[in-house]
């Protein structure tokens, strides 16, 4: 009989409106996929603005993109891909019941994520110094492309800023996971929160994998 109550002790993580742990896990994973679909639409609006303005001002786009540091962008891409790897390993460790391994990989993921954000801070500071932040202080060295460049940088800050915000939220979630992992809350039976945050983290990584070439590699052959 599908009633988790009447039996002997059920899993401490089981919420009472679910009949069993499997249903709960299923719902949580499916829920994260649905949430990620909304995120695709959210970023999609910005990708659309990017596409439109790039189509209209191709030369301005190239000129503006050259002001981004490709090396830092590439480094960050590698860092983020690395963090996706460590995240996947953290999930796997949980599935195998290896608490120590999971804690290690979660720490690495958080570190790599923090490095990414650190690099972004450096880049943003550089843009600020060079008057490339849209607004009253915006100043572009090639006057021909001043207006499209301002639009480029608006899109740049909007998209990387939104991405960075998602990363910060992700780091928060990872920290919460880490604390729980240290306490041994995740077992072979119940590893779902790690898997679900893992999905989120991979998504944030994939967004960056689109952002990097679109923003940093315009006009580079």
């Amino acid at each position, binding site marked *: 009989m599908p009633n988790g109550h009447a039996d002997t002790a059920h899993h401490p993580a089981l919420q009472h*409106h679910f009949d069993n742990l499997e249903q709960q896990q299923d719902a949580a994973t499916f*829920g994260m996929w649905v949430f990620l679909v909304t*995120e695709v639409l*959210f970023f999609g609006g910005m990708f659309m*603005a990017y596409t439109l303005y790039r189509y209209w001002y191709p030369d301005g786009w190239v000129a503006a993109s050259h002001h981004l540091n490709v090396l830092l962008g590439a480094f960050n891409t590698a860092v983020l891909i690395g963090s996706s790897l460590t995240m996947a390993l953290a999930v796997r460790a949980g599935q195998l019941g290896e608490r120590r391994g999971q804690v290690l990989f979660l720490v690495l993921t958080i570190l790599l994520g923090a490095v990414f954000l650190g690099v972004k801070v450096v880049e943003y500071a550089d843009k600020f110094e060079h008057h490339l932040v849209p607004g009253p202080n915006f100043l572009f060295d090639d006057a021909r492309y001043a207006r499209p460049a301002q*639009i480029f940088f608006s899109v740049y800050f909007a998209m990387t800023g939104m991405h960075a915000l998602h990363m910060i939220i992700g780091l928060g979630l990872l920290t919460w996971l880490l604390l729980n992992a240290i306490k041994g809350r995740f077992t072979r039976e119940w590893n779902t929160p790690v898997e679900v945050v893992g999905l989120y983290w991979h998504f944030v990584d994939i967004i960056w994998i689109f952002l990097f070439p679109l923003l940093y590699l315009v006009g580079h052959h």
Partner: protein
Amino acid sequence: MDTATAAPRVDYLENGHTWQSWLLTRDHKRIALLYLFGVTFFFAVGGLFALMVRLELLTPLGDLFEAETYNKLFTMHGVAMVFFFLIPAVPAVLGNFLVPIMIGAKDLAFPRVNLLSWYVYMVGGLFTMGAVILGGVDTGWTFYTPYSTAASNTHVIMTGLGVFISGFSSILTGFNFIVTIHKMRAPGMTWFRLPLFIWAHYATALIMILGTPVVAIAIVLVALERTLHIGIFDPTLGGDPVLYQHLFWFYSHPAVYVMVLPAMGVISELIAAGARKEIFGYKFVAFSSLGIALIGFFVWGHHMYVSSQSIFAGLIFSVLTYLVAVPSAVKVFNWTATLYKGSISYDAPMIYAFGFLGLFLIGGLTGLFLGAMGLDVHVHDTYFVVAHFHYVMVGGTIMAYLGGLHYWWPKISGRLYPEGWARFAALVIFVGFNLTFFPQFLLGYMGMPRRYHMYPEEWQVLNVLSTAGASILGTGYLLPMIYFTWSWRKGPKATANPWGATGLEWTIPSPPPTENFIETPIVTAPAYDYAHQEEHVA
């Protein structure tokens, strides 16, 4: 299914009386009531603004309010009604209450997310009310650029923030419904045994999660443009004001289906119960909900035929607009056919359902005028459009919402409302509504533009009729507010199934216990199985 025969369970209303037990509840039924409080408040606010708009329009001159004030009144009427009443009302009140029960579950998949969605809605509402109190906003609920980004000196960003935040409430609700309907149906509750209310809410949830993020971005970009003048929508900086319209309508057209699909789901339930028959063409009605949700994403450009959009784009949007009309027609025919050889009741929920059929019919059919490109050129941005959307939104959604509130009131409150007053109110609303909005079709074709507080004298008679209707309509809406409140304490107690209807919600006590079902039900019958009802009823 068995109703309470064992030890009496505490019903959800009695299960805790402190304010924490309400404000920190995880019970979907209590959250539905929290939403009921919120949406009713915004309905009153929006209604008050509407009344003021109609009062100004009694005379051809702008003599009641200053122009700026009038512009704020119609804007805030739209913002309050669209974002804080029409979009949440049916899904967040009736949907939240009924979706778990109708599928045989104890709650939604993520009860804490459900509570969060209410708080997000209320915070968004606070920002918007804050903007109202601080002086209002005057851009129209559509916030067109560059007026909203460069010219208006009202509280655009604060209102935008309120709308942005409350959009997340919509996304969270939709997300919760999708996961719940997929993963928490009781054993035996296959997709094609689901009540059509569930199909409608599923289709709605799809729109909520796919469309809302785009308007969120549109609002963020407006805010950035307004503060930083970055140039996305500003032509003097190389931007494109029409891009905003695309981003806005990409959501706001599907949003109207968010407003109407749940209402259609309610109507299916009301007609099945009111005729004591299965809905004719169940699968067609179910699939038409999905069809409307899908096609509805591709018609947004029909709001932009005269915005300098290309003819080619206009053609595509027009043909798709006509395609999306077909599933709605199919539903209306199926509902009508359900009445054939039914056992038709004249209770208030059914009166509301009849009202819906007539008014949604007119509203939907007048959409056909607007979809025709050459004709839309003449009536775009006139009162014809205003009349059309009020027929579908008010004549459609609000009639269905009220009908649903009446139908499920015994379940929600455990009390019966006064039937005589309810029927009377339904008639007053129906008459008041038609008197308010039918003249507006005529005004629109004559050429009266929207958002005007002064107009040529020859149009005064129609405007006066419309205002007279509005006062009747307003009175009609007050009546249920009064007698529902009265019945909460003083109404006769309701049994588990006062209507003799099918559906899992009628197999549990009125009001239900907190966990809905003592034992998870096992479903073996199709929906609306009136033919074999005796075999299923206790």
